[in-house]
């Protein structure tokens, strides 16, 4: 059986000691004995390939030099070829208080009904004596990983987009604020 590619494949993937031994010429092919990791194998390859194997073996090239160079190249490629993973997870209410069409609230004028109608149910409702607090929260986790085999890096950022509204006993808006951190449409 003519297997021209086999010596080159063996030469490439043989990380450890690879030597050619005795050969017996039989017409157009040659029986070659090679060894790798203390195990011997008999192959039938074309004469030209057998000669090449024999020459390289005698020159010391098959005794680990080429395979180790190959291993080095693979290691270097593993270091520079990145595998990137980006993940985004969002939970909470819709941040309707952001954007160009965001509702406008006024202290002393807006009511609980105005806020509920504009933003929907809050994430949390807190009773502070005679005051009521509506707490709106949208949470987003942005994770970016670079898997380089030899070196990996993962950076996760948790961003909170918040809005809080304080109401008096009559349900009038007394204070409100939105967070400096914000989650835009492009982030979702």
């Amino acid at each position, binding site marked *: 059986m003519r297997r021209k590619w086999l010596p080159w494949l063996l030469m490439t993937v043989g990380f450890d000691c690879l*030597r050619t*031994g*005795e050969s017996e010429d039989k017409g157009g092919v040659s029986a070659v*004995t090679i*060894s790798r990791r203390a195990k011997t194998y008999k192959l039938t390859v074309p004469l030209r390939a057998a000669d090449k194997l024999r020459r390289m*073996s*005698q*020159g*010391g*090239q098959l*005794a*680990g*030099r080429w395979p*180790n*160079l190959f*291993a*080095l190249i693979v*290691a270097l490629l593993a*270091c520079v070829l990145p*595998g990137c993973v980006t993940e985004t997870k969002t*939970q*909470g209410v819709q941040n309707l208080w952001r954007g160009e069409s965001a509702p406008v609230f006024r202290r002393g004028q807006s009511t609980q009904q105005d806020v509920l109608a504009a933003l929907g149910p809050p*994430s*949390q*409702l*807190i*009773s*502070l*004596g*005679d*005051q009521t*607090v509506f*707490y709106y*929260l949208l*949470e987003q*986790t942005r994770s970016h*990983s670079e*898997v380089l*085999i*030899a*070196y*990996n*890096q*993962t*950076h*996760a*950022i*948790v961003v*909170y987009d*918040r*809005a*809080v509204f*304080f109401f008096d006993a009559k349900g009038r808006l007394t*204070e*409100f*604020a*939105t*967070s*400096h*951190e914000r989650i835009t449409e492009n982030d979702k």
Partner: protein
Amino acid sequence: MSALPRTTNNRAGRFGRIVATGATLALAVLAAGCSRIVTDVGPPLPQRTSLDLAPGHDAIRDVLASLGPPAQISAAAGGGCVMLYEHNAINENQLGFDIPYGIPEYFKLVYARATLEHDCWAMTFDPHGTLIGWGEERHRIPFGSGFALQFLVSAKGLVDTSEISVPATQHRWGMASLCPLPQVLNTAQSLTSGADGLEQTPSPPSAGQHTLDMEAR
């Protein structure tokens, strides 16, 4: 099988092989599976001196204008309230070791250490909304360490950071009555409802009101 004769080329090849093998081993042992995992939760808190806020002088309106909504709000005894501003950052560094031979070469031994950077402000307000107390905590402490056997290309955190990266308590506010029975029976002492106080995120679950829950968070 007859041995091959040694030649000058063989010696040069052997030197190159030693250098290549050494470099490969060094790369495999020293750099295999080194990882850095950073988790940043919430906005960093500015330096306190950079803010024009003072207890006894400023009110909720001034605080909200300067800092925005807090991480948590809760009612306080006497009709006031308390706000918590918090920032946590966990930095986990992993050092991997690989055995570049046989089956073990597909796995790596990984040692990991994590540090926690924790910044927290607790602000208390009287019933009139005036800032009356402002506590600060800033520290950078070891958060944990771990050792594992991982597949070569995996990059997974070894230190349990779930107590820091847990979703905000506001998301679970409406589920208070669906918690396990010991927690439901003690909702009057809940630290997440906004009515009975609050706590910092890294607080241990086996202290304070959580002991009534009879289990870890």
